[in-house]
């Protein structure tokens, strides 16, 4: 009884934070009129990218964080989603929003099928197998036989959608809302999935596969379906990226993208839903800031040569892993725990009799 009450309380606590966050996101695009800036559309675009990455990281998190299967090849599913959406829009003239369900089905199918060979492979071996996906996909996309569809190396240029119903907002504000809507649906779905029986099964398999099997969980089925759902999430993120960037090309989906998802996952926090949002934001901000930071360093120390922005990225990552080994979400929780612990200790010192009394009650 006590345990369930505590977890309910925690969940409600997180719920308030989540509600506040999503409301903040809803209001954010309206800031444009309050604080007019010429670059506002660019910030909206950054916001879109953050949500796109957050969804992709969530997809990877479902697989790695909650089911214990490691993937270094999620860039491939991202590419599949992006190209499916782009080809549907260009060759079949579909509206952007109608591509999402198709992308979901295609990517779920692809992920589900890839899940079968994945069953045979454990941890490192699975990581390597998915790694090959990440390497192969950009090459395949350039292949002559499908260049008619994919546009080859030059990729496909898309039309950016206008806001519907003559809404008085800019296309970028509108796309921000579109991404936000998708993110809300997908995070809500993931939250529900993880909270229920399936989620517990997924995590049981992660923690001890054999034990989970003896408990009557169909581990193969759960693992393949999780792979499918994970690919579905990442694929939708890919489609959203194609729509918001209005351009797809094989080079966008090279190995660094798959690694970026993993970095986002680890930085945000493995096995944490808010961690995915943090990871998504981190990926976008770090790309933007490491370049500016490199410029600042060059100017302040009047260096002869550029400081490579990748080096800054690396140092940042190292620092972060050292300070917060469980990711930012984990770090925040730990910090909160530490502060709460200290407060409790202070309280203990101040009101000793009360504590004794309550301890006595427990027994």
């Amino acid at each position, binding site marked *: 009884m006590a345990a369930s009450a505590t977890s309910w309380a925690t969940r409600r606590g997180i719920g308030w934070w989540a509600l506040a966050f999503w409301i903040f996101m809803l209001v954010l695009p309206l800031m444009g009129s309050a604080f007019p800036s*010429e670059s506002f559309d660019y910030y909206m675009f950054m916001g879109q990218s953050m949500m796109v990455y957050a969804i992709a990281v969530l997809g990877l998190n479902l697989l790695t964080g909650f089911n214990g299967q490691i993937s270094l090849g999620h860039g491939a599913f991202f590419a599949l989603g992006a190209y499916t959406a782009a080809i549907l829009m260009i060759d079949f003239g579909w509206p952007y929003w109608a591509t999402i369900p198709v992308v979901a089905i295609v990517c779920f199918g692809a992920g589900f099928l890839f899940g079968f060979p994945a069953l045979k492979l454990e941890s490192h071996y699975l990581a390597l197998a998915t790694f090959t996906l990440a390497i192969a996909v950009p090459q395949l996309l*350039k292949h002559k036989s499908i260049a008619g569809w994919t546009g*080859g*190396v*030059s*990729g496909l*240029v898309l039309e950016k959608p206008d806001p519907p119903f003559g809404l008085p907002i800019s296309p970028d504000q509108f796309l921000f809302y579109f991404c936000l809507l998708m993110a809300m649906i997908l995070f809500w779905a993931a939250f529900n999935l993880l909270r229920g029986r399936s989620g517990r099964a997924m995590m049981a398999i992660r923690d001890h596969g054999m034990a989970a099997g003896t408990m009557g969980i169909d581990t193969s089925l759960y693992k393949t379906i999780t792979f499918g759902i994970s690919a579905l999430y990442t694929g939708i993120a890919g489609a959203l990226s194609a729509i918001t960037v209005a351009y*797809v090309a094989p080079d966008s989906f090279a190995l660094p993208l798959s690694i970026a998802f993993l970095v986002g996952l680890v930085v945000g926090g493995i096995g944490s839903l808010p961690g995915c949002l943090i990871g998504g934001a981190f990926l976008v901000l770090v790309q933007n800031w490491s370049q500016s930071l490199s410029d600042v360093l060059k100017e302040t120390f009047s260096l002869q040569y550029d400081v490579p922005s990748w080096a800054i990225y690396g140092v940042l990552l190292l620092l972060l892993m050292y300070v917060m080994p469980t990711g930012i979400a984990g770090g925040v929780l730990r910090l909160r725990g530490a502060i709460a612990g200290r407060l409790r200790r202070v309280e203990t010192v101040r009101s000793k009799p009360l504590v004794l009394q309550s301890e006595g009650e427990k027994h």
Partner: protein
Amino acid sequence: MIPNGTKIRRRSVLLGAAGLAATMSSARAENKYGPGVTDTEIKIGNTNPYSGNASAYGANGRASAAYFRMVNEQGGINGRKINFISLDDAYSPPKTVELARQLVERDQVLLLFAPLGTAPNVAIHKYMNQKKVPQLFIASGASQWGDPKNYPWSMGWQPDYHTEGLIYAKHILKNVKNPTIAVLRQNDDFGMDYLNGFREGLGKDVDKLILQTATYEVTDPTVESQMLQLKNTNANVFFNITTPKFAAQSIKKAAEIGWRPAQYLVNVAASLGATLRPAGLENAQGILTAIYVKDPTDTKWKDAPDFVAWKAWMEKYNPNADMADGSNVTGYSFAWTLHQVLKACGNDLTRENVMLQAASMKALAAPMLLPGITLNTSATDFYPIKAVQMARLTVDHWELFGDLISRDG
């Protein structure tokens, strides 16, 4: 215009705050500014491959930056300094899309100047035209840049690849007995544009003449296996459509494996510093190309006034760069062209006027172009440079021969 402006400012000091406000509004009525322009600054964006496999071209961006440093040191353009923001896209189209967006939307540049590479520019072509931001003097010779009807905000600078390919084909038909041709081509729009022009020039027997076309990706490490394939065809002509790194590799490899066809090397890889010296000059003797700028290693130009000025500029503003690299010539020359266009704009520095001035160049003699070549544009003609001249690598420089061959002629 400048003294006039100073006078106004002096008066406003006397009149105090109210007067200042009034002058500022009147100044605004007089001067028409697009995004990125103020009384003291013009913000210009640029993308270049400073890293990656095409990084040899990065010299273009550094040369342009050095040119604008000189302009700024000399007082700027009509009193406005050039703020040249040049970013590294590593020749990767998605990166170019990202950076173009950043430059246009976040940094609010007046225009994108000489973004480098065919595929990177194809990727932002539509975006720039939708946003109505000039994509000016594109550092790529793809023939699609000269389409003012559909893309009025994009303009190239150098001679187009299609025509150049056509010129090589005609030269082969005229000069090589029983030609059999092997082609190495970069697998993108740049490679296709050259090849299409080349095939057109070869006429109806094209499929008999070309024995094999091998391709490579700009992200590949080497082209060695492609060269072995091509050698096995025993072709007596080798048409080399590559960027500098791969051009150097292929020329060197051909010599190593003892394949000695007549070699045609595309202009964009014909840099002594970036391609031929790394390939080994002894391996490159007799290679043919078509050029439109003065080869800085050719002693013939040592007294030409524009060469003297270029050399002085190189020594003062671009001292770490390679004197033998043609990119330092083109980067300088198209920066000069933008300089003239912005000067011609006067105080009407809107995006519309920039395009209008760029499309009104009449026999503009840009420095370091071959004698007889000038810049000409009109509302319907967005190809500034239309002529080239054939050249043969002789000892350590390009030896020109024949007449200027123009796009229309």
